[in-house]
């Protein structure tokens, strides 16, 4: 129970990051969170499967430092992203840019969804007009009764 209370407090406290004696890697908490957000959006080119934020590669450290410097120099988020793309191309973006070549990528899921529900709609229409199953004959009724009787004998 105590653990639950404690963790609820965690959630309460998450809004209020208390001051501490450890030096943050960046002095301005707002800049720090901007830097983290930006570096989480950029792909590390050395490891290629981590963001710059996660990677411990030298290049990642250098680029994180670059980001800090640019933030300190007053550049906007968009400027910094453009800076990276100018040097490393679209590959560095975790979020693929919206362009003519990526139209199918971004529009694809919506298209598939529409297509899927359209097919569903058509199927439902045909189901509605399908012929009903033929009724059982008296013989078949008797057979069913026998089998069901058999079933109750042996349990569910």
């Amino acid at each position: 129970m105590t653990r639950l209370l404690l963790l609820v407090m965690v959630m309460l406290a998450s809004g209020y990051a208390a001051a501490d004696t450890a030096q943050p890697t960046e002095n301005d908490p707002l800049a720090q969170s901007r830097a983290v957000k930006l570096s989480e959006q950029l792909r590390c080119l050395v490891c290629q499967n981590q963001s710059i934020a996660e990677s411990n590669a030298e290049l990642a450290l250098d680029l994180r430092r670059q980001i800090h410097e640019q933030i300190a120099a007053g550049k906007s988020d968009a400027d910094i992203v453009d800076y990276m793309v100018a040097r490393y191309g679209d590959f560095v973006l975790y979020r693929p840019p919206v362009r003519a070549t990526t139209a199918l990528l971004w529009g694809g899921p919506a298209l598939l969804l529409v297509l899927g529900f359209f097919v569903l709609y058509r199927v439902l229409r045909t189901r509605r007009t399908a012929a009903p199953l033929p009724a059982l004959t008296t013989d078949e009724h008797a057979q069913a009764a026998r089998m069901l009787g058999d079933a109750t004998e042996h349990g569910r």
Partner: protein
Amino acid sequence: MNKRLLVPLGIFLAIAAFLFAGLSLDPREVPSPLIGKPAPQFRLAQLHDPGRTFGNDDLKGQVWLLNVWASWCVSCRIEHPLLVELARANVVPIIGLDYKDEPELGRKWLAQNGDPYRLSIVDRDGRVGIDFGVYGVPETFVVDKVGVVRYKQIGPLTADALEKKILPLVRELSKS
């Protein structure tokens, strides 16, 4: 047969075709967005003569190569003999960019392995490297007479790449 039943097969075959194409591609290779654009501005101290500098404009009017290397880079050793040979042939000036390296170690390395560079410049903190979009050492750039980047070789130079891509390009650029 209901033609619609062939749709799954069609989709699969299309995907398979791409997968097949993918076998001959390298997903890790990041092409440079600098191709066709002016080389980034820089001015750095020289490795063997720290009092003097070299900048991107200094070889305007010539075609030149920028080779990114470092003393800690293992693959650089593989391509280095090719560079030395190329330098001996005196086809095109090669400028070395000593990337994120101790200048003393860089000088030692060149002394040990040969120095194909007309000169080398020191990029201690890697900033110029970032401007060039360097992400793996070694890399080599071809810069034309007006200072525009024309080609980037990712990874060590190979005899194949030199013969088939870089040297013909250099020749073509030198003519104009």
